């Protein structure tokens, strides 16, 4: 039976975006912004309602499956499992937050606030589509389509080098997407040989035997695209350039939501469709992930530009997520899923709060700051909390996921964990050194008289920080949704958790 809820969920923001786009030019900016926010809040409400009604389990809920292009085997098929639901929630939570935080960021851009908010809504809708698609072809369509709003958001609204950055972003993503296209087509070619005819439905592909060598090639195609998206070393260089030029809001949507498509795709497609190839590639991917973790962290330490620094921290964090995915055990995979959500929150907070500061001072360079805490204590405080969440301080949500990922890595191979764990030291260095240089010390010229955060700004950050803290102590609601899906993924991959030497339940009960 087909459910139209997901269609509604993804059409709501897209329709809203179109309405915004065709509003007459004389519509006041306030009306534009308020209606955009209203639409995104409505979407959030709908998504929450869906989340509440979500039937936990390994399968998909709210499924819809309609033939789309028969000859291609493409379906309009949507559905949410725990992994998708988590990321959809992340998307719908972050969109209103970004809107509120970027209330005036669109005013001076290429198409004014109307364009900004319309692109943001379009991006929201398409992202929901990406996370809800249960058909590879449909996924690919959404995957590529999301590039357009981001491209215009970066190129139209941002710093001096924004156009170049936007082109770089687009080309990297497109290149990855095209490589993936080859694999997507490969799926058609292989399934078309079968008696059932071509299909792109994940549910059917999961039981399809691609053969060893074909499966590996196709895995590589998917993986390259997702590695660029995620981004992993060595295809990460577009990210710092982009965040350096984009508005904080755009960076949030880019890093917190869009880049998750990469890691989401690794689970959904690399692992579930090509289990044999995934196992085959694990050693290489794990090494790449560890390099990403350390490389991103070191690069973050060496950055003098705050958005670049945050971008590099994300490279490091994405390394963790990929590590968690490819160790292929419950802890790693659940941790990676949770990590995606938590990283979304914490990086969003970090981008936004630093964005508030940068817009006040007019410089993104750490060396231009000093003593901000003195003049803007609330800003400094929220910056610190965001930063601490980024360095995975216990009590804040990213800790839980990072711990799970590292546990998973350790179970997989103690060496993997041993190389990844030093990142917690590096994380402390990059966050606290930045905090030290920006916030503490004597008040620098140029920082004097910097106003503290206003109510709008604080209230845009508040939901993020509340979630970070609450999930830091009580991640169970998300884990309860994620775990069954992870079990399902594991059974697809044909992996089960290695048993500890001593089998004994948690004796502390």
């Amino acid at each position, binding site marked *: 039976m087909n459910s139209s809820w997901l269609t509604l969920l993804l059409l709501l923001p897209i329709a809203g975006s179109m309405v915004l786009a065709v509003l007459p030019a004389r519509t006041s900016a306030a009306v534009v912004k308020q209606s955009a926010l209203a639409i995104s809040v409505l979407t959030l409400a709908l998504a929450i309602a869906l989340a509440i009604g979500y039937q936990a389990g390994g399968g998909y809920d709210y499924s819809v499956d309609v*033939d*789309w*292009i*028969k*000859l*291609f085997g493409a379906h309009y098929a949507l559905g949410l499992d725990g992994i998708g639901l988590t990321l959809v929630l992340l998307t719908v939570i972050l969109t209103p937050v970004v809107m509120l935080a970027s209330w005036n960021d669109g005013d001076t851009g*290429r198409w004014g606030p109307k364009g900004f908010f319309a692109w943001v809504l379009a991006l929201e809708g398409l992202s929901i589509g990406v996370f809800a698609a249960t058909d590879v072809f449909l996924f*690919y*369509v*959404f*995957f*590529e*389509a999301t*590039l*357009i709003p981001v*491209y*215009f958001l970066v*190129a*139209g609204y941002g710093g001096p080098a*924004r*156009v170049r950055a*936007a*082109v770089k972003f*687009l*080309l990297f993503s*497109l*290149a990855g997407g*095209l*490589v993936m*296209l*080859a694999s*997507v*087509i*490969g799926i*058609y*070619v292989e399934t*078309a*040989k079968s008696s059932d*005819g*071509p299909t792109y439905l994940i549910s059917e592909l999961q039981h399809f035997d691609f053969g060893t060598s074909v499966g590996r090639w196709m895995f590589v195609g998917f993986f390259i695209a997702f590695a660029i998206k995620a981004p992993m070393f060595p295809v990460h260089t577009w990210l710092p350039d982009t965040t350096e030029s984009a508005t904080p809001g755009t960076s949030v949507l880019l890093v917190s939501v869009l880049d998750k498509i990469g890691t989401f795709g690794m689970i959904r497609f690399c692992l579930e469709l090509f289990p044999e190839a995934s196992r085959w590639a694990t050693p290489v991917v794990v090494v790449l992930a560890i390099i990403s973790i350390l490389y991103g962290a070191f690069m973050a330490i060496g950055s003098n530009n705050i958005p670049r620094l945050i971008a590099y921290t994300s490279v490091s964090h994405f390394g963790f997520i990929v590590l968690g995915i490819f160790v292929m055990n419950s802890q790693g995979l659940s941790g990676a899923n949770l990590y995606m959500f938590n990283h979304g929150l914490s990086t969003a907070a970090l981008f936004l709060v630093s964005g508030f500061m940068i817009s006040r001072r007019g410089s993104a360079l750490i060396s231009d700051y000093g003593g901000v805490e003195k003049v803007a204590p609330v800003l400094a405080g929220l910056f610190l909390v965001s930063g601490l969440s980024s360095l995975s301080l216990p009590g804040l949500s990213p800790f839980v996921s990072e711990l799970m990922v590292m546990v998973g890595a350790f179970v997989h191979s103690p060496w993997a964990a041993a190389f990844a764990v030093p990142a917690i030291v590096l994380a402390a260095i990059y966050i606290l050194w930045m905090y030290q240089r920006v916030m503490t010390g004597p008040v620098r010229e140029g920082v004097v008289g910097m106003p503290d955060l206003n109510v709008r700004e604080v209230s845009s950050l508040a939901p993020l920080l509340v979630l970070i803290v609450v999930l830091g102590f009580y991640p169970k609601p998300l884990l309860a949704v994620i775990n069954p899906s992870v079990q399902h993924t594991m059974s697809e991959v044909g992996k089960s958790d290695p048993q500890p030497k001593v089998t004994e339940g948690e004796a502390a009960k």
Partner: protein
Amino acid sequence: MNTFDAPTIEYFTVSPILIVLGVATLGVLIEAFVPRGRRYLVQVVLSLVGLLAAIVTTVIVFNRLNPGAKTPKGGKVVAMGALAADGPALFCWLLILVLAVLSVLLFAERHLEGGVTSFAGQAAALPGTEAEREASTKGLEHTEVFPLLMFAVAGMLMFPAAIVLLAVCVALEVLSLPLYLLCGLARRRRLLSQEAAMKYFLLGAFSSGFFVYGIALVYGYSGSMEFAEIAEAVSAQTGSEGLLLGGIALMAVGLLFKVGAVPFHNWTPDVYQGAPTAVTAFMAASTKVAAFGALLRLFYVAFGANRTEWLPMIWIVAILTMVVGSVLALTQTDIKRLLAYSSIAHAGFILTGFLGIRSLNVVPGGSLTGISAVLFYLTTYAFTTIAAFALVTVVRDGGGEATSLARWQGLGKESPLVAGLFAFLLLAMAGIPLTSGFTGKWAVFAAALSAGAWPVVIVAVLASAVAAYFYVKVIVLMFFSEPIGEGPSVTNPSVLTGSVIAVGVAATLLLGIVPGSLIDLLGRVGVFIR
């Protein structure tokens, strides 16, 4: 006394060709007999009516194939074995005719040049002379362009349907000769236009020399002009193989020249740039359809049996075409030239689909074949490109069309609509999903991959990435660069050009979102009769 055996001509089946030819002839007569002032209207209406009539008959003939059936009838050989009215042929007819309607609309546009068409008032008048000024003040126009166009269309209709080498040769010439002339008829920038015409003509003639020599060799090999008998000879491997190889090579040269494949592509940028934009649009869209239609039929039907011998050659050409087209487009500074190189790259993508040739018995019924993939790509590309060139005609400055990319800077500010639509078409050419460019790419790559041509597909994918860069560059230019000087201006076109743009954009969008019915149709009818 011998009995007279009247040739059987299935008049109704070939009526689209006959109608178009008739209208073309009529158009020539009109030039002779109708007063100058009325010719424009009469020619336009006549051409449109003729084309629409041809479309109607094509549709009727097409329906007799019963394309809704799981296995439609294969079509039939008509006109004493000269033409094949099968699925691919009829589909090409339909496509060419629709594109011809759009081209007529573009040809007839008079708003942009202040009340006259964009063709030379008097081709014979020297640029910059009194005669030309007079022609221009009198508002003279070359209404011969319409019959010329109709002749070319007639040739294009024959080209993909011809199953006798003789007919192929004639069709090739019928479609080419009017085009040579049309290229030289620009009202503005006459020198460029004439140069384009000359280059196109000389090279075209040169390449048809190769083509007919190829025909001669193939004839020498097989002893027949008919595709079916050639195919038999090829599979029976009678005759001297050297003749066959030479014939294949030389015929390939002629056809690859027409589609603008590397290394036979050099004319494309020069001619696309120099020709009147409406003609470029017509050429870019329709000629590709006709030429690929013919290429498909010749190679699939006549030479299909020894494809293992010629496929590697096509591999090389396809790779070269995609790479050279994409790379050279990177540094172009003129929008028409850029689109020309883009069309070269696209020819490479279509050739990739062309590689999807497989024996029918390994292809599961109703699934994607090389033929249907190529035809689908042609459809998507034709509409996108005709709309793109139509948009080029509306961006103007004091000297006519502003084709220099530098003049396109800041177009997004001047006219968000034009820039937005153009950006959309560029994204389609880049193959972004939700546009026809994506589904088209998918189809040709899938066809090629199914036939095992994965190295070409990988090159194609990389070339697409390179190509994306120059498309995006134009978008950047339009939206994010400051205009130089006064900046470009957009002249509002009449409903003629407007509707071409609308149709092109709509097709690009619809074939991107709901390509299902078309591709299913092609999946069913995309089979050559033999």
